[in-house]
């Protein structure tokens, strides 16, 4: 969860957590040490208290002054650990081991025999056995201390008796925890704001770098470089240098992209120019032949009329092709007619004759053709010239036009070199490139795609190659409505 927070929060929190953990660890270790030393300290205090009581109570015991011994015991017991909570008590016993006075008369009663008796489940030594200080360690951890009180002439006047219960020797967790809590509080009070400040200071360069990275591509690279933090920190320095390098490389790439775009535009212009030249040049040979026919056989009315119609439709095709390149021009295009197919055959005739190709045709039109004539003439002429070119010399080419209510097909088959689908695709890619020599098939594919049709190799065709073009049999506005 901590990793989801920002560094500005993580750093102060981390510092505070570290201090809290350190305080807790120190407290735990201190508690262990305290538990070990508390018993020794308490025993030392009890020893000193016993010595003090023995010395102070000696003259009072000799004077049989119970009250003053009681007062002395009460005052001295106050210094014993645990006395305030009733867990430590002291008494002075007379020479026969009976209570002379005690700081807790309810527990250690006046004039009641103690030495040689059972106290807290343990038998105390007899009077004669206590010739020197004796410490009795009870099973539960409590202790009892007996020390003889002797007069100046070494006569036994009585005994000092001190009891300390087991809980007194336990570590004082409340006292030990208090400094830790104070430490934690101070950590929270001082380190959180300090950590916040340090965190902000530490993360500011990182944030600057992040901001620069966010702005890459949107702000001028020179301005971005200026915003990069300049720091002595080695890690941040590496990050800044890397971002600076990235900006430089992006600048190089942007310049390269601009050059590539410019080149691509130029290439596109070249391709368009080449395509236009190709589409104009294709019918041009047929039209020139038609003019020769007109000049030789123009005397015949029928020949003149048919040739002039051919010239008109051919020029219309060129006009339509050129108009398609001009967005502002809208050339009216009529629907395809059977004569257009005948015109295409006529326009291709010079190539057919030149290459000694036997051309056969088939027309199966079951429904009215509504497709635009200019583009279909363009497609048919391209495919036919391509077939004639690929058929070999002498060769055979078969052109077929079919149409029903839904679709129109035009196919050209030849017995020349077989063209696979992959080879066809490669040829199309090549024709879309910078090679101006073979745009025919590429134009056919583009037109098919534009009009929602297709242009492929017939993979089921036997010997040679059969290319099939098809498109929906509908007019342009119907196509838009259908889309």
């Amino acid at each position, binding site marked *: 969860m901590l990793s989801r927070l920002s560094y500005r929060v993580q750093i102060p929190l981390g510092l505070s957590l570290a201090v809290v953990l350190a305080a807790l660890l120190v407290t735990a270790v201190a508690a262990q040490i305290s538990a070990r030393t508390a018993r020794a300290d308490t025993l030392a205090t009890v020893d000193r208290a016993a010595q003090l009581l023995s010395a102070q109570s000696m003259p009072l015991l000799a004077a049989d*002054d*119970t*009250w*003053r011994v*009681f007062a002395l015991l009460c005052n001295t017991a106050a210094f014993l650990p645990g006395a305030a909570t009733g867990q430590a008590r002291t008494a002075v016993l007379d020479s026969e081991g009976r209570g002379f006075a*005690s700081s807790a*008369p*309810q527990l250690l009663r*006046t*004039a009641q025999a103690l030495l040689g008796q059972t106290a807290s489940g343990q038998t105390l030594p007899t009077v004669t056995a206590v010739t020197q200080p004796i410490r009795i360690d009870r099973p539960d951890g409590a202790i009892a201390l007996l020390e003889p009180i002797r007069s100046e002439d070494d006569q036994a006047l009585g005994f000092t008796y001190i009891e300390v219960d087991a809980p007194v020797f336990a570590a004082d967790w409340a006292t030990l925890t208090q400094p830790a809590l104070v430490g934690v509080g101070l950590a929270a009070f001082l380190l959180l704001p300090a950590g916040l400040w340090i965190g902000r200071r530490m993360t500011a360069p990182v944030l600057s770098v992040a901001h620069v990275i966010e702005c890459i591509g949107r702000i001028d690279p020179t301005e971005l470089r200026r915003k990069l933090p300049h720091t002595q920190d080695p890690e941040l320095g590496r990050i800044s240098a890397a971002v600076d390098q990235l900006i430089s490389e992006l600048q190089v790439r942007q310049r390269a992209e601009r050059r590539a775009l410019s080149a691509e535009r130029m290439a596109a212009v070249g391709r368009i120019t080449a395509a236009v030249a190709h589409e104009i040049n294709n019918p041009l040979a047929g039209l020139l032949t038609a003019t020769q026919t007109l000049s030789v056989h123009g005397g015949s009315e029928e020949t003149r009329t048919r040739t002039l119609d051919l010239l008109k439709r051919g020029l219309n095709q060129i006009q339509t092709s050129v108009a398609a390149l001009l967005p502002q021009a809208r050339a009216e295009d009529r629907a395809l007619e059977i004569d257009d197919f005948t015109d295409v055959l006529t326009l291709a005739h010079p190539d057919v004759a030149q290459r000694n190709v036997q051309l056969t045709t088939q027309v199966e039109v079951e429904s009215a053709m509504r497709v635009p004539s200019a583009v279909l003439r363009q497609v048919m002429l391209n495919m036919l010239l391509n077939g004639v070119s690929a058929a070999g010399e002498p060769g055979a080419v078969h052109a077929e036009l079919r149409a029903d209510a839904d679709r129109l097909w035009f196919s050209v088959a030849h017995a020349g070199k077989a063209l696979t689908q992959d080879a066809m695709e490669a040829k199309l890619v090549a024709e879309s490139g910078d090679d101006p020599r073979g745009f025919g098939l590429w134009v056919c594919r583009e037109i098919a795609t534009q009009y929602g049709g297709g242009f492929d190799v017939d993979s089921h065709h036997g010997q040679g190659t059969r290319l099939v073009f098809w498109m929906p049999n509908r007019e342009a506005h119907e196509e838009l409505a259908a889309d």
Partner: protein
Amino acid sequence: MSFASRDQYQAVHEMLSNGQIDAAWTCGYPFVRFQSQLQLLAVPLYKGQPLYQAYLIRPLGGEVSVRGWSDMSGKVFAYSDPLSNSGWLVAHGEFAAAGIAQGNLKRSFFAYGHRNVADAVASRLAFAGSIDGYVWETMRLQGMAGAMQTEVIWKSRLHGFPPLVAAAGTEPAKLDALRRSLIGMPNDEAGRALLKSLNLDGFIAGQPGIFDSIRHLTRSVPGSGVAA
């Protein structure tokens, strides 16, 4: 004027006889015992009379076996002062009357002060103690632990209240001036406040006859120091 305090009547009377002090607040028993060396200065009025009682007290909620003087055999007993009427003389008279010799007590001791007797009994250092009734009542009035944690199981007859005395040779004029001041205390605010803090009503000149009951008691108690 200066005040001196001692925890034993013996010390007070030594100061008086040595001329270290002009007057002392003592007990009726030492007044009777040393009457030839003293003259009566004034006697406090407690509850309107120059009289008080001695109490036998035991720890509150203590052993029910201690109901009176006769139950003290084999027990620990706290006296106040060897020269105290209520804290020694009365107790000795009652022990004698109950047929209990001092040797029959398990242990006895002097606490050197009525307040200490109450504390000794309250803390169970002693099973019972003999105390000035006026002191016990005043301690209780002030909520002191020694009185709050003890209870009275016997009260003596009325005796002359502990008097203020002066040495026999004290100059009469000085004595009269001091007596007038004491007797006139109820007449001014400071005096009344002081009397209230002492839980007293005032002072009277008093007559030695007030202490006849104590005098009588001294004659019946062996070792009282007063000839029978």
